[in-house]
């Protein structure tokens, strides 16, 4: 990313200044959870503001006047801030990616219902159907996010995917895992309750 805001750090025009102010404020808001401080945080703000300006310029015809223009522009800044934080995560890669720790995530599945007071009797236990089994991609994404604690936006960068696609994989994995746990009596079976 080499926008005009980064090239020698000139005094930004007024509209750039607004974007930079919003980016800085947003990074400061998220800062305590990011372990990013000082010049590094400011660098991210400059990058996010510069890329937000590019996004706004490129998408300005998509603005339909449903909100104030500045609100729409703030959204572009937020999305760039999130993307920059996602990329920044891998500058200090301490988190392994893979499914080798999947067993840790599946740990609760090995508990017997009676170990937690028993939500359902043994008569309700049944083998999970094929539809309850997670696909390898679902296992990979679930393990990365839930077990290894990789932020979703960082996983997007790592897998060359999109936030929406990763979220959908997680959504389906959560639904399947819950169905499997409910089918085995570990969690309430909403389908049985609603019927």
């Amino acid at each position, binding site marked *: 990313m080499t926008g005009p805001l980064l090239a020698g750090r000139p005094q930004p025009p007024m509209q750039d200044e607004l974007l930079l102010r*919003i980016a800085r*404020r*947003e990074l400061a*808001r*998220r800062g305590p959870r990011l372990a990013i401080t000082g010049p590094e945080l400011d660098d991210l703000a400059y990058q996010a503001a510069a890329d937000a300006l590019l996004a706004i310029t490129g998408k300005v015809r998509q603005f339909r006047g*449903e*909100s*104030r223009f*500045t*609100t*729409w522009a*703030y*959204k572009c*800044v*937020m*999305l760039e*801030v*999130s993307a920059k934080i996602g990329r920044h995560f891998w500058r200090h890669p301490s988190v392994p990616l893979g499914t080798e720790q999947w067993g840790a995530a599946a740990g*609760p599945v090995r508990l017997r219902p009676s170990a*937690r007071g028993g939500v359902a009797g043994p008569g309700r236990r049944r083998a999970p159907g094929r539809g309850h089994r997670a696909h390898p991609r679902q296992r990979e994404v679930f393990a990365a996010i839930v077990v290894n604690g990789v*932020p*979703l*936006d960082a996983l997007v960068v790592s897998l060359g995917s*999109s*936030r*929406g696609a990763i*979220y*959908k994989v997680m*959504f389906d994995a*959560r*639904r399947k*895992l*819950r169905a499997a*746990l409910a089918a085995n009596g*570990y*969690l*309430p079976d909403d389908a049985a309750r609603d019927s």
Partner: protein
Amino acid sequence: MNGWPALDRFLRTDPRDVGCAQAMEMLHVYAELVAAGEPAEERYPGIAAHLHACGPCGEDFAGMLAALRDAPG
């Protein structure tokens, strides 16, 4: 994860959830409604469901609200 109730909450999915793309498409409109005290959740239940469930989109939404509340006029 704090026990079974927490696991249950985490694994539950809302069928109204519109997903990231649709939520982001309307985030500026939704955020303005919320900032103005309008019933955004009633108007856009699918977006509300998504913002409750999706950490990154929820974070962007929180940032939008903070920006709107700090912005002049």
